[in-house]
């Protein structure tokens, strides 16, 4: 392979990105060296097993990937803003909508949610960490290796270009012979191992590590939604693992699982993809529902209306999530029986979802609502998401779907589900839990700019897509003629996307401003919260709780405050056992990344040689006899005095 095949060449946009990436990396390395921060980075972050730091790294990666996926989105909007534009060619457009989809779902939504889960869940259940802290670090680093491998594709070798769904036969070697779709198969496989491990970790954490007295019906609702999400992860991700493995075999070793010739069946890929893909939608949206519930209850100053029905609704959605996958391909030409059954199961999902919507509304009813930024996101979520939900029921009807299938109507629908459902939730969660992570609030005034720009921009961008979709515009069209009459809608939509981007910029500015200027004096409980994470200092100390709290009802911390029961006696303190840092997770992830890169280019000898590193990492990990360390009572007391004043 010659060098100009290795690097993507011939496009000024990409050349500029290559130079920008090169300069940024040199700049970062120089800056860290100049500030003498390498050792600090290694000890405090790269080798950490602390769930809060891992969560923060997930969130940082998620925000970076949001930027990357957002730029992809803006480029698409620019290209379709006027008819017959030649800003991007068809190939480039294909690559961009593919990476936009993959990055936004798997490398933006997932890490932002898993990041918040990591930070919040152990604190909410009164635990000192997750069940398997080192595995948690491995999860993060594998996700990160997968994300980086996927991102490098657009400057080295070429991006995947068969859509985020990578349908066969297009995604097969026959029709896309380059390395682009190899990146898809292998990068997602590596990131997927990390996600699966996260799912297992949280299932065990929530079953085994709850504070004394925290029975199932006393779990905060975000813990419930995370628990059920983790179960769906464990149930659904192995299907994707298998599908990607078949795809890899097809593309790298010439097997015929999904090919048209030699007995393969491309529809088998669709079937497996959506058996994972539909539950994946609930994997991202259920934790988000949990976050909204926490935020709404806190800022309405009421306990969550219908807690039990909320739990059953989440469980019901999870159960149905595995029974609806065919609604993504009604048009494959199934029998009427298949399409009818899957129409029914799909529409049934509207029932538990409706229960949740009404629960939120009744929680708000007669509440003393405080319009904080976190609450604004939650309030805007309800109507926006309902539009997404109702258009979803329209799409659920198999006969009608023959009209909407793969049009911009569908694209508008899932953006109306995923942006209010996931992105608004992540924003609400970030504003809400930011003080618990960093010890200061994000600025509320800039937050409101962020909110209004983003919500207005979002509706301007995606509402017109419903109409062009009903007017016959299919998705993934890179250009159109003026005679279609879509130019007005799409131009409006493009302007909306600029406002949307301005909203994101306001968030970035808010983070910068708050880091520099926000008051560090927020106390442990800035929002008058209800759950245990607010019972400890902000930012949460590395041991989480000096004394593990005891729980006797729902909203435990709320009642502890009411009964004046939040103090700490020094005599209650015992030494705390903590896990030590470990270098194996990041080492393994780097090796996985390198092996993955060689596999993408089908350099098998190198891949085999590099995978020796995986064995080395695993063996080194098995012989790691480090049992952690203890924090003495004196150290605990000193740290607690810093924010509590004197102990009792």
């Amino acid at each position: 392979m010659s060098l100009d095949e290795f690097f993507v060449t011939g496009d000024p946009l990409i050349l500029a990105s290559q130079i920008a990436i090169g300069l940024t990396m040199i700049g970062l390395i120089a800056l860290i060296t100049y500030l003498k921060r390498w050792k600090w980075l290694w000890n405090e972050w790269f080798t950490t097993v602390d769930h809060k730091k891992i969560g923060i790294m997930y969130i940082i990666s998620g925000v970076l990937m949001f930027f990357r996926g957002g730029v992809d989105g803006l480029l698409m909007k620019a290209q379709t803003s006027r008819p017959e534009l030649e800003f991007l060619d068809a190939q480039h457009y294909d690559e961009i909508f593919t990476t936009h989809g993959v990055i936004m779902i798997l490398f933006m939504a997932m890490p932002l949610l898993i990041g918040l889960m990591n930070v919040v869940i152990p604190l909410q259940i009164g635990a000192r960490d997750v069940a398997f802290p080192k595995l948690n670090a491995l999860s993060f680093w594998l996700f990160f290796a997968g994300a980086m491998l996927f991102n490098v594709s657009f400057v080295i070798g070429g991006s995947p270009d068969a859509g985020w769904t990578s349908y066969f036969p297009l995604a097969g070697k026959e029709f896309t012979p380059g390395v682009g779709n190899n990146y898809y198969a292998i990068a997602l496989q590596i990131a997927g191992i990390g996600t699966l491990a996260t799912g297992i970790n949280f299932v065990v954490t929530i079953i085994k590590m709850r504070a004394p007295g925290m029975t199932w019906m006393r779990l905060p609702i975000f813990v419930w939604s995370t628990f059920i999400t983790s179960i769906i992860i464990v149930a659904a991700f192995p299907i994707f693992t298998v599908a990607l493995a078949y795809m890899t075999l097809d593309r790298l070793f010439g097997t015929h699982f999904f090919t048209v010739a030699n007995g393969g069946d491309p529809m088998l890929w669709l079937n497996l993809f959506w058996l994972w893909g539909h539950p994946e939608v609930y994997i991202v949206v259920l934790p988000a529902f949990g976050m909204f519930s926490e935020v709404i209850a806190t800022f309405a100053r009421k306990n969550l209306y219908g807690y039990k029905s909320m739990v059953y609704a989440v469980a019901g959605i999870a159960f149905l999530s595995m029974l609806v996958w065919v609604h993504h391909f009604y048009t494959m030409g199934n029998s009427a029986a298949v399409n009818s059954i899957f129409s029914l199961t799909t529409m049934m999902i509207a029932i538990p979802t409706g229960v949740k919507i009404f629960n939120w509304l009744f929680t708000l009813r007669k509440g003393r609502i405080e319009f904080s930024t976190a609450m604004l996101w939650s309030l805007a979520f309800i109507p926006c998401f309902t539009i997404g939900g109702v258009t979803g029921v329209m799409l659920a009807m198999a006969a009608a779907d023959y009209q909407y299938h793969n049009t911009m109507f569908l694209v508008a629908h899932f953006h109306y589900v995923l942006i209010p459902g996931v992105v608004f939730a992540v924003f609400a969660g970030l504003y809400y839990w930011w003080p618990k992570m960093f010890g200061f609030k994000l600025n509320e005034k800039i937050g409101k700019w962020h909110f209004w720009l983003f919500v207005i921009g979002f509706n301007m961008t995606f509402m017109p897509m419903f109409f062009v979709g009903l007017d016959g515009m299919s998705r993934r069209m890179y250009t159109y003629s003026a005679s279609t009459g879509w130019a007005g809608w799409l131009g409006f939509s493009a302007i909306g996307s600029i406002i949307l981007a301005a909203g994101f910029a306001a968030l970035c500015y808010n983070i910068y401003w708050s880091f520099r200027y926000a008051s560090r004096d927020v106390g442990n409980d800035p929002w008058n919260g209800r759950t245990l994470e607010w019972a400890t200092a902000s930012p949460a100390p590395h041991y989480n709780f000096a004394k593990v709290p005891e729980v006797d009802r729902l909203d435990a911390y709320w009642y502890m405050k009411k009964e004046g029961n939040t103090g700490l006696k020094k005599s209650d303190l015992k030494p705390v056992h903590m896990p030590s840092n470990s270098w194996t997770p990041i080492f393994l992830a780097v090796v996985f990344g390198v092996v993955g890169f060689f596999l993408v280019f089908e350099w098998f000898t190198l891949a085999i040689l590099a995978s020796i590193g995986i064995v080395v990492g695993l063996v080194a990990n098995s012989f790691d006899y480090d049992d952690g360390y203890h924090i003495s009572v004196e150290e605990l007391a000193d740290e607690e005095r810093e924010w509590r004043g004197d102990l009792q």
Partner: protein
Amino acid sequence: MSTKTNHFPWNHLIGFVLSIALTLLAVFVAFNTDFSKTVIVWVIGILAIFQALIQLFMFMHVTEGKEGMINVVNMVYSIFLALVIVFGSIWVLTSGHAAMH
């Protein structure tokens, strides 16, 4: 945990007897009947499932202890998912126009 009781272990005895009976029945069906091969395989398969259930309940006590409920739900849900994935896929991919390729 102290679970010492003076009761006769009826559960174990019944489980033991049933296990032996089911095994002998399988042997009998395989060697002493004139059923076709398919039928024999099905019968043995069904007997094996009963055998597994007896093991789980009589000897491994899945329903007991703090995690009993969780174990049962977990197993039932896994079996359900496996059935949905396998038979659902077969049904979807072999019905209607999809079958004609």
